[in-house]
C-alpha cells in the first residue's frame, strides 16, 4: 500500500521557514567569508611583522658595514695625507747631513795635507740650458738637487793629493771627484803643491739614512788647519 505524504504546513509558515533558511545561508556565507578574510589578514600581518624584524636586523648589520666603509675611507684619506707629507718632506729635506760630508772629507785627508778653503753649495739652482737644448722651457720645473763642492789646500807632494782624491772617490757618496789643478807654490820658503779639487753629490739619489746614534767625527781630527803659506 502506497503512502502519500501529506503536507499540512500552511504556505505562510513554509514561506517563513524558507526565508529563514535563505537568511541562514546568507549569514553563513558572510561569516565564512569574513573568517577567511580575518585569517588571511592575520597571516599577512604576521608575515609583515616578521619581515619588519628581519629588515631591522639587516639594517643594523648594514649600518655596521657602512660605518666600517666610512672608517676605511677616512683612514685611507689620513694615510694619503701622511704619505703626502712624507713625500713632501723627502723633497724638502736634504738626503745627507752636511756635517757628515764635511767630517768624511776631512777624515780622508792624508798626513801633511792642509786645507785652505772649503766651499759647499747645496742650494737650489735653476737648470742651465745650452743653446743646443731643444724643447719648451718649463720655468716651474723643480731644479735638480745637487751639492757642489770645492776644496782647496796645500800638500807636500802630488802623491798626497792623489791619495786624498782616491780616498774620497772610494767613499760614498763622493763619486765624481776631479782634481782641478795642482801647482807648485812656495810656502814659508818651502816648496808645496797647491791644489783644488771639486766634486758633485746628487741629492736626488736615495741614500741610507744616517744612524742617529753614530758618533760625530772627533772635532780634533776635523780641525781645518790655518795655512800660512804666502
Amino acid at each position, binding site marked *: 500500500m502506497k503512502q502519500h505524504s501529506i503536507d499540512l504546513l500552511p504556505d505562510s509558515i513554509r514561506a517563513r521557514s524558507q526565508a529563514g533558511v535563505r537568511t541562514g545561508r*546568507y549569514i553563513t556565507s558572510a561569516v565564512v567569508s569574513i573568517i577567511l*578574510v580575518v585569517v588571511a589578514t592575520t597571516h599577512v*600581518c604576521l608575515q609583515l611583522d616578521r619581515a619588519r624584524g628581519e*629588515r631591522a636586523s*639587516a639594517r643594523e648589520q648594514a649600518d655596521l658595514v657602512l660605518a666600517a666603509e666610512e672608517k676605511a675611507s677616512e683612514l685611507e684619506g689620513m694615510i694619503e695625507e701622511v704619505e703626502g707629507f712624507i713625500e713632501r718632506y723627502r723633497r724638502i729635506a736634504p738626503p745627507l747631513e752636511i756635517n757628515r760630508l764635511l767630517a768624511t772629507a776631512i777624515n780622508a785627508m792624508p798626513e801633511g795635507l792642509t786645507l785652505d778653503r772649503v766651499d759647499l753649495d747645496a*742650494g737650489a739652482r735653476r737648470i742651465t740650458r745650452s743653446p743646443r737644448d731643444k724643447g719648451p722651457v718649463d720655468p716651474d720645473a723643480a731644479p735638480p738637487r745637487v751639492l757642489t763642492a770645492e776644496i782647496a789646500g796645500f800638500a807636500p807632494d802630488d802623491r798626497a793629493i792623489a791619495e786624498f782624491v782616491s780616498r774620497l772617490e772610494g767613499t760614498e757618496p763622493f763619486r765624481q771627484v776631479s782634481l782641478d789643478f795642482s801647482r807648485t807654490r812656495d810656502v814659508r820658503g818651502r816648496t808645496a803643491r797647491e791644489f783644488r779639487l771639486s766634486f758633485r753629490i746628487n741629492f736626488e739619489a736615495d741614500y741610507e739614512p744616517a744612524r742617529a746614534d753614530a758618533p760625530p767625527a772627533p772635532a*780634533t781630527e776635523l780641525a781645518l788647519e790655518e795655512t800660512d803659506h804666502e
Partner: protein
Amino acid sequence: MNENRHLIFAIVGGLAILLLGGALLVWPNYREARQIRQETAELRRKVSDSAGHTGTVERLADELESARARVDRELKLIPDAPDVAGLMRKLSLPVDGRTVLDQTFTAGNACDAVLGESFSERSMPLTVDMQARFDSVFALICAAERMNRLVRISSVRLAADRSGAARGMPMLTASVGLEVIYDAPAVEEGS
C-alpha cells in the same frame, strides 16, 4: 529556481566580502611585506659583499699607525712659523775672543721650500758669518742639523783667516747658509 538564485547570491556575496577584504586588508599588507623582504634581501647582499671591511679597517689602521710612527721616528718637525729668533738663540755661540771672535746672523726673505713645487712649506734663509775656530763652526753645523726641527744647510764656505796668524790662533772665516723650513698656514681670502 528561486532557491538556486538565492544560493548564487549568497555565494556571490561571500566572494564579494572576500574580494573586498582581500583588496582592503590582505593585499596592501602582503605588498608591503614583499617590498620589505626585497629590501632586506638587498641589505643582506650588501652586507655579504662588504664582509671584508672589518679586516680592511684593521689593516688600514695598522698602516696609518706605522706611517705615523715613521714620521715621528725619522722626520723632523716642520713648525708653522720660522721662529728665527729662537733658532738664533740656539745656534749662537759665546764670543769669547778665543774660539769665536765674531758671529753675525743675517735673515733673508722667505721663499718656496722647493723651487718649482707648490708646497705649503716655506724656506727662510739665515746666514751665519763667523770668525772662529773650526771646532766652533763645525759645532754650529752639527747643532743646526741635529735640531728636532728641519733646518737645511744650503752652503758652507770656510777659508783660512790669515789675519789671526799673527796672534797664533788658527781661525777661519766661515759663512754657513741655513734655510729654516716652516709650514705657513694658509691665509683665508678676505681675512
